[in-house]
């Protein structure tokens, strides 16, 4: 089947405006601006049930519907701060299919009547995003962005902004702080961005991949979109899965949610092609470093928003890290903990102190000085963090710790003394 999101894989040079236009590009924007009232676009996206692809799965149309109708400054902010371990889908879209992101963001802007779109890319994308910046200039040149778009009277500016190396800025309120030129630290909510977002104005923050789902929904309709995933009404549409770690063919694979299992993604020749050297699977991190680890028991689960619920895990942004039988899970959990300790923004105490101490304890165990009590201490610290942090980062940091202790106690036992 042709790709819906990774269209550049079927259509060479689709990053060029003329190629994108020749293949139905900006038809969604045109249709939205000329055939629909803003509210009708929101209703359409609600009906299609496009869920957020950044990890949380919140319905985009509902988010848009929270924006007050009163006139005044409003913003669409595109989250392109992709920094989760094992996630590399937004970067491919940015580099090779930039116009679909721009078109989706402009449709969102029309739906909520925003005057400007800011796309926030992580600073590390600054060189790789040259085609994206060119695409923005081309869109302006063709009157697809800026003043009086396509002669409809709709005005919307489109700005590219870069972060500077901070995972926490992927959290939407921290992203807004960073865009305002402040330290990227999460805000206390409420108020939510829909009430007080960028510069205190109502703001929608959507992930890059989420917005790429919008143009085809406007062109082909909600029923078409809902019909793609036949038996999984809670998870409609395509999803890009990022496959990394111990697989023969790592990379991005676009699937229709519900049609593919984790086992197929890892082993089928058209996807991951199995584990190198014929080794056995030990564990899967289905949501990068942020979700609980699962074992081979989850291989038959479908890749959907709820597919891993029976295994106490999540699809998240579908960043699937595959670990073979040679991996020591204490090492894997220590690596992830190191990441979160480094990326904790320092604002709230449970996360700042918790990630620091988890890291210290892991190093003690890894260096051979740990005891059984230290494993209990890891659990105690993680449980003290759960539910007490200002944002999800602190919660994420506990997942790999608690789930590896639960599923792989023998790996910990091998590393520690009794007393």
């Amino acid at each position: 089947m042709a790709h819906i999101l990774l269209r550049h894989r079927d259509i060479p040079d689709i990053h060029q405006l003329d190629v994108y236009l020749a293949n139905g590009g900006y038809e969604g924007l045109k249709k939205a601006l000329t055939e629909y009232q803003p509210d009708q676009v929101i209703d359409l996206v609600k009906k299609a049930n496009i869920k957020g692809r950044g990890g949380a799965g919140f319905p985009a149309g509902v988010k848009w519907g929270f924006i007050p109708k009163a006139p005044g400054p409003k913003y669409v902010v595109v989250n392109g701060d992709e920094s989760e371990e094992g996630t590399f889908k937004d970067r491919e879209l940015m580099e090779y299919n930039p116009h679909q992101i721009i078109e989706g963001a402009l449709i969102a802007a029309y739906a909520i009547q925003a005057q400007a779109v800011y796309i926030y890319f992580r600073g590390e994308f600054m060189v790789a995003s040259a085609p994206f910046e060119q695409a923005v200039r081309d869109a302006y040149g063709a009157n697809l962005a800026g003043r009086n778009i396509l002669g409809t009277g709709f005005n919307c500016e489109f700005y590219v902004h870069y972060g500077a190396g901070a995972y926490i800025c992927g959290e939407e309120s921290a992203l807004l702080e960073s865009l305002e030129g402040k330290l990227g630290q999460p805000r206390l909510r409420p108020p939510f961005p829909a009430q007080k977002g960028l510069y205190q104005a109502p703001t929608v923050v959507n992930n890059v991949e989420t917005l790429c789902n919008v143009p085809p929904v406007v062109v082909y309709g909600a029923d078409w979109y809902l019909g793609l995933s036949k038996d999984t009404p809670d998870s409609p549409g395509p999803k890009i899965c990022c496959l990394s770690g111990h697989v023969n063919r790592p990379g991005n694979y676009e699937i229709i949610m519900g049609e593919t299992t984790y086992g197929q993604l890892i082993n089928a020749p058209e996807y991951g092609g199995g584990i190198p050297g014929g080794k056995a699977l030990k564990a899967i991190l289905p949501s990068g470093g942020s979700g609980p680890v699962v074992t081979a028991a989850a291989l038959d689960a479908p890749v959907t928003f709820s597919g891993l619920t029976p295994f106490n895990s999540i699809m998240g942004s579908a960043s699937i890290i595959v670990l073979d039988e040679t991996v020591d899970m204490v090492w894997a959990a220590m690596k992830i903990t190191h990441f979160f300790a480094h990326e904790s923004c320092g604002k709230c105490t449970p996360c700042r102190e918790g990630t620091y101490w988890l890291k210290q304890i892991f190093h003690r165990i890894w260096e051979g000085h740990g005891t059984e009590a230290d494993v209990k201490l890891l659990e105690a610290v993680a449980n003290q963090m759960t539910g007490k942090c200002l944002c999800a980062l602190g919660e994420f940091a506990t997942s790999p710790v608690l789930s590896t202790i639960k599923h792989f106690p023998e790996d910990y036992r091998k590393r520690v003394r009794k007393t």
Partner: protein
Amino acid sequence: MFADKYAEQIQTILARYPDKRSAALPVMYLAQKEFGYMSEEAIAEVAAVLDLEATYIRSLAGFYSLFYEEPVGKYVLEICDDLPCALRGAEQFVEMACRKLNVPMGGTTADGLFTVKTVMCLAACDKAPMLQVNLKYEENLDEAKFEELIARLRQEAMGEA
């Protein structure tokens, strides 16, 4: 003067935002390009351009890891050794890179050309081992490709000198 030299670019940046403070990171990138790292002078120049306190700019430089608080080499090699990359040999790759360039982790070569750092996930896990050279992606690397890259960069630097 920084403000004069980059006047046009600074104006373009400021025009994007209703609030001057939003220009902090973009103007800091310009200053880092000019001064090589976020030196006291660079911080003072950015603060003056944006009417912000130098302490405030210093806090941003400390928070965001792409701003360097110490001098760095002409080429900053940022190697990801997070879990997905480590599963594909990134930790051994980092050791090899340091050995070849004869620098400790985070150090700069004596000729001032290369700084080697490890960084957090760069969204290229499927193409590990990988690194960024001054933010340009170099992917699917091994020892031979790393040596080629270093030779190419040395040649480029000599050409410019």
